[in-house]
């Protein structure tokens, strides 16, 4: 799951070419890796890829700050 999300972000979503390889613990929104639209695209990808529904109230830093946070959140669902 982590690898799939990392690959998606690295190849499809990144605003610019990343200086370093994306890590699972990198801050996606705060670190400027994703803008708001990119985060929405990522959530849509996750919903379709992993067949889950992400309600708006779950779109918080606790669940989406990093790829690690996302996988922890998805594993709880």
């Amino acid at each position: 799951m982590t690898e799939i999300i990392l690959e998606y972000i690295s190849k499809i979503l990144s605003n610019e070419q990343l200086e370093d390889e994306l890590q699972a613990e990198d801050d996606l929104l705060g670190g400027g890796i994703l803008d708001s639209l990119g985060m929405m695209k990522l959530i849509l990808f996750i919903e379709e890829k992993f067949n889950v529904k992400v309600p708006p109230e779950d779109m918080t830093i606790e669940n989406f700050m990093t790829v690690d946070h996302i996988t922890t959140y998805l594993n709880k669902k």
Partner: protein
Amino acid sequence: MNFNWTKEQLEYKLKVIEFAKNHLNNDLVQKDLNCSFAADNWQKCAEFGIQQLAAPKSFGGQFDEIDILHATLAMEGLGYGCKDNGLPFSLNAQMWTVQMPISQFGTDFQKEKYLKGMASGKLIGSHALTEPNAGSDVFSMQTVAEKVDGGYILNGKKHLITLGPIADISLVFANARPKMGKWGITGFIVEKGTKGFNQSENMAKMGLRTVPIGELTFDNCFVPDENRLGAEGAGWGITTSTLEYDRCCILASQLGSMERQLDETVKFVKQRKQFGKSIGDFQSVSNRIANMKLRLETSRLLLYQVAWLKSQGKSAMMEAALLKLQLSESFVESSLDAIRCNGGRGYLTENEVERDLRDAVGGVLYAGTSDIQRNIISNLLGL
């Protein structure tokens, strides 16, 4: 995708049109000239049940749950029947950017206290997101919320806030965790009269003059914990989730306006005679009418597509951007065509043709400019 409306939905739309035609079109030229808000018409809408469309039955709404398809069609009817474009605009602003988030994210206390009041027309709510230095890049906002014992202290300034000057409550977004950037954005419900909270006067503007728009300032304004909407940092999720509903319904009213505009223009060019025949017989005029119809129907398809997607609980990022771009730009173009078809008559304020153009221009700016919509579309295409 199914564009078939139920008999009940279509009947309700007709009822809305009838209600709006009979009760909401009084003294509009004067109201526009004076930039005056029609508080009586706002209340009439509440009594009819318009604001109830954006609340569940348990908190003053019409249905058990908010029905986006029903609401879209109703707001289209309101735009058709009500010639004051400002009223549907301001109603939609409250319904989808204040009522809807409180309905989705609010506590029972907040729903009981605020949602019921707005659904019944007793309260007016504004949505305060934009700032002087945070427009299209809205999450770079500078208004902060410092956590203190029992609540938060808000400091900052919001501008271009629809209904801001007269609102009884404002849903204000501030950064409660500035070091965390966008993840710190948090929603707060601030009541009129709260110490340190100031609402400006209505600001003069080109169109939508019956809508009070102004600034809100927060100077060490204390807001209790119980008025925080959702979790700390949930502001981003709140705003992004309600944006597509907002676009859908505000634009539904604009679609209704475009249909009314087309019907009135067709009626005029048929009865207006020059050179011994109706001006609609001249191809230069009839081609304009055909273009207006094409814009109307392409906008309608996009609108219904977004409404349907939202009714299925699906994302509509691309579709909502296409809709916003197409419909808002179309309304401007068709408003200009309507004036051209009316000739000099259309230029005179008293004939209520030119007002649509002034009102339409706002549509290419608010809720994401046309430039931003094009950015979203191209981004989603992988550019």
